[in-house]
């Protein structure tokens, strides 16, 4: 318990969390502080490229093992299964319509790459190693949850379907292409490639992450303000509870796969996080009847801050207890 509280305490006073808190407070206080859309996109491109490249370089350095394929299958399986659990929980905790509950559930089965990036930053700062190919697992977990969400909605007779165009948009969305592309570049160029651009993608990484999280805080704060009164207490409880359920589902999977403590923490983080990029866009196309204010606010306004402040340290500590050698 002391170990968990210690990790949480250190995390809460890190520049990453405090930057997010600054953005959140500024938005709630109606400050004029804002990050232009183009700047936010540039920051996210940098982060995705850097994390993908470093993951690929790590795989090149340590070599591939059979666990990569198993980890991908496990990630896809979790991404399918988590929405079903989330949907059941939502329907029991709230009076949300089937379509809204399915859309929200889809977000929780998919992943937040910024939560993943933040977790890697925390692991790095604590000198905890992790499997480089977790980046590929993150990319694999983006889409299956969308299929699960549409299936859950369709069971109620909503007549939703996933056409070829939507498949293309989901599978080739910019963040997946960049993440996997950078991962492959890192895997091909290896340590030599990393050494060439290290001063760009390693040293400034945390500073850029701070700026991006400042923006995330602003977006989350605005979302919370604008959706005041929209979310029931049950929905907020769900958004705090579901990350821990997802993480608990991922823990035995990671242990069975024999991941390191860092890899286990990342698997738990991926399962605990909720999408706010790929899934919202897919839901707007496939499930337009679902209210975007509900799923975006739960994902970005409640679950994201929870994972960032309390969740990740908890997953790191728990992973250390179970998988720490």
């Amino acid at each position, binding site marked *: 318990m002391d170990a968990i509280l210690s990790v949480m305490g250190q995390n809460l006073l890190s520049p990453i969390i405090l930057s997010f808190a600054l953005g959140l407070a500024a938005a709630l206080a109606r400050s004029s502080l804002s*990050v232009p*859309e183009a700047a*936010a996109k540039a920051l996210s491109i940098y982060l995705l490229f850097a994390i993908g490249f470093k993951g690929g370089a790590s795989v090149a350095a340590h070599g591939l093992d059979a666990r990569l394929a198993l980890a991908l299958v496990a990630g896809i399986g979790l991404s399918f299964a988590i929405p079903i659990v989330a949907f059941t929980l939502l329907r029991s905790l709230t009076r949300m319509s089937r379509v809204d509950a399915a859309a929200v559930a889809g977000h929780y089965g998919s992943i937040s790459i910024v939560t993943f990036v933040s977790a890697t930053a925390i692991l790095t700062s604590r000198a905890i190693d992790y499997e480089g190919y977790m980046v590929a697992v993150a990319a694999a977990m983006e889409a299956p949850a969308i299929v699960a969400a549409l299936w859950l909605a369709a069971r109620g007779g909503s007549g939703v379907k996933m056409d070829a*165009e939507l498949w293309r948009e989901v599978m080739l969305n910019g963040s997946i292409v960049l993440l996997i592309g950078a991962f492959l570049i890192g895997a091909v160029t290896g340590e030599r490639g990393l050494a060439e651009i290290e001063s760009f993608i390693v040293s400034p990484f945390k500073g850029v992450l701070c700026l991006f999280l400042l923006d995330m805080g602003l977006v989350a704060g605005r979302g919370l303000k604008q959706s005041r009164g929209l979310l029931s207490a049950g929905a907020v409880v769900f958004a705090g509870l579901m990350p821990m359920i997802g993480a608990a589902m991922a823990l035995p999977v990671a242990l069975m796969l024999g991941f390191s403590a860092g890899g286990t923490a990342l698997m738990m983080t991926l399962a605990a996080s909720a999408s706010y990029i790929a899934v*919202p*866009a897919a839901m707007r196309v496939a499930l337009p009847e679902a209210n*975007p204010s509900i799923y975006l606010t739960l994902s970005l306004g409640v679950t994201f801050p929870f994972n960032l402040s309390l969740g990740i340290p908890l997953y790191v500590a728990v992973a250390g207890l179970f998988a720490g050698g």
Partner: protein
Amino acid sequence: MQTHQAKRVEIIIEAPLEHRLTDAIVAAGVTGFTILPVLGGSGRSGQWSRDGQVSLAGGMVAVVCIVRPERVDTLLDAAFKVVERHIGVVSVSDCEVLRAERF
């Protein structure tokens, strides 16, 4: 200067549907349109702002077409099939253009 009557159709729609809408418009034979970014707004689904968003889902775009009056129904039929279930605004207004052969 000689001007000609035309119709200006403005469709404000969720950004993830932009390509679906423009594909439908082109398929209906309207090859001229302008896409404009929308900074923010408020409506039945609440307030929203483009600031800081990295996801398409939180944004809207405005697609503006200027067509001859006799083609406006074809355009609206094609556009409506895309926007019917989604958040957005479709408006039609009268306007005048200088070079009628271009529309």
